[in-house]
């Protein structure tokens, strides 16, 4: 049971981690994350890396859609921009991979600002539709700007190298991808402790009031697009180094729907929600795969069922969570925590 904390400074009151128990859990989590790769087999390492990438991207989308209230179906396209940038830089400029990732993020941020320009004139649903349009136009560019993007064949990506060693195994990639994702999540959490994050939330809740308070709407909406797309671009770059190839089929509207689902299922407007949602959505297909394999002795061609079943489940998850638990899994987690705050004196 948690008894109130006595903080002596305002800084302590505003901190991300406030109690000794929270510090303890954080330390356990960090130790667990650091030690896990030594215990996990290759399949789970693959999943862990994929979760890291998805968490990074979902956190970015959460900033735009969950916190600022600008629904975007373009996350996949922004990730593609990052991935293609990384692939191109890798092939034509020999910069270190961290620089490439950063450049991928910047490129995606620039595109994000362009895509956000319609928010000058429209908001809400109309803006969401504009992002669909932008996604399709970007897809066209990826497919047809063959000199840069390799057209429909896509591009291969050489492994990233750190201090001379190429990162080819999941074990190695884990130790790069997970810290990057963790830093990105921390940055997002920090953002919402400052005036910029508050301004984003204000725009979501009541943009007229935000204007009255002196927040320039267009500038901040574009800023939100920029930050969120930066995150997507970096995640896309990580994706490129992980899968070592990128093509126009890698990031379509289906992927954008995936990340939107992750944000909805996890909990919009909650950093924890972004993490939970991305983890959950990454693991769901694996659970489905188990299920399909389990029934394959009884059903012919069960393997071909995997993709459509996944599509149905994604759609169903979006619907179920929006109807029954609009605040997502994060809210369920908070309910459990509140329960334990008062336990054993529950009422």
């Amino acid at each position, binding site marked *: 049971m948690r008894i109130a904390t006595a903080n002596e400074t305002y800084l302590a009151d505003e901190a991300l981690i406030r109690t000794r128990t929270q510090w303890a859990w954080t330390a356990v989590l960090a130790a667990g994350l650091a030690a896990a790769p030594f215990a996990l087999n290759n399949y789970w390492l693959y999943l862990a890396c994929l979760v890291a990438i998805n968490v990074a991207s979902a956190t970015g989308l959460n900033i735009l859609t969950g916190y600022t209230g600008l629904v975007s179906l373009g996350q996949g396209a922004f990730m593609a921009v990052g991935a293609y940038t990384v692939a191109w830089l890798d092939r034509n400029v020999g910069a270190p991979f961290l620089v490439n990732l950063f450049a991928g993020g910047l490129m995606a941020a620039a595109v994000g600002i362009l895509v956000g320009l319609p928010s000058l004139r429209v908001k809400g649903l109309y803006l969401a539709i504009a992002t669909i349009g932008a996604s399709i136009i970007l897809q066209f560019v990826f497919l047809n700007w063959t000199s840069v993007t390799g057209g429909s064949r896509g591009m291969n990506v050489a492994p990233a190298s750190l201090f001379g060693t190429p990162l080819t195994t999941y074990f190695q990639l884990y130790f790069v991808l997970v810290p990057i994702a963790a830093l990105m999540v921390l940055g997002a959490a920090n953002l919402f402790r*400052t*005036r910029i994050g508050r301004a984003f939330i204000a725009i979501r809740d009541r943009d007229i009031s935000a204007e009255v*308070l*002196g927040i320039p709407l267009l500038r901040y909406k574009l800023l939100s697009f920029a930050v969120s797309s930066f995150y997507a671009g970096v995640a896309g770059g990580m994706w490129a180094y992980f899968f070592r190839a990128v093509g126009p089929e890698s990031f379509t509207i289906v992927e954008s729907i995936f990340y939107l689902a992750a944000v909805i299922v996890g909990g919009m*407007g909650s950093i924890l929600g972004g993490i939970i949602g991305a983890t959950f959505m990454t693991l769901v297909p694996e659970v489905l795969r188990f299920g399909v394999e389990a029934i394959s002795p009884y059903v012919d061609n069960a393997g071909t069922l995997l993709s459509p079943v996944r599509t149905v489940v994604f759609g169903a998850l979006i619907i179920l969570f929006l109807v029954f638990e609009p605040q997502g899994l994060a809210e369920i987690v908070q309910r459990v925590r509140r329960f334990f705050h008062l336990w054993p004196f529950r009422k």
Partner: protein
Amino acid sequence: MPDAMKPARLDVEGLSLSFGGLRAINDVTFSVEPGSITALIGPNGAGKTSMFNCISGFYKPQRGAVRFDGEDVTRVHPPARARMGFARTFQNIALFRGMTVLDNIKLGRHAHMRTNLLQALAFFGPAAREEVELRAEVERDIIDFLEINHIRHMPVAALSYGLQKRVELARALAMRPRILLLDEPVAGMNREETEDMARFILDVKEEWGTTILMVEHDMGMVMDISDHVVVLNFGQVIARGLPHEVQADPQVVAAYLGSGDPAALMKRLAAEADAGAATGGTA
């Protein structure tokens, strides 16, 4: 008390506003003295809220000017006005429901803060310092002042109507305004809440020295705390002056039907009754 910003003078000159063929405001001129509490009153549909929206920058009048300490601000956008020192509350509460009381109030200071994106992402360093400074100032000058310590971590959606209005006032104060525009600050409040709010508004005038312009229907409160009253009807000024002068003005009484002093009314009725008895008729 806070390093109060110098209270500003507001002048409205010859303002006219039309919506299509409808003249909402017709050549209105009045002044708000620095550091005073001025009330803008009038029956429903008189044009008070339109006037307010012109002053705060949401409507652009067809003719006339709004001057802030002499400077013409008629065409200035709301975000820029916030930086100049305009703060405004809304008739229907415009708090951010997804945030706590404290966060809402902190947002008031947004325009004056300097944390940029990179500092925000890192947090430790300049952003943290600014946040702590802001928190200390808000706690000391605003939360204690408006007696809302007990609710500062609560989400605003969970508060009662009266407390929400108080939080909105708090947020407006966080802007360190040079002029505070209050749109029906006690609308929908009961007697106790109204008295509390009136007390707070007077405290703001005394301790912060801010110029206050308010639109209000509650005559009792208006007459109690205002230094100056401007009466609008059908988009025109029909009276202005000290509260008791305006209250006795026959045009104002006519506009409101019965906002006169009840004692005077009683005397008048009694006098009419006597006159009736004197002439022998039934009263």
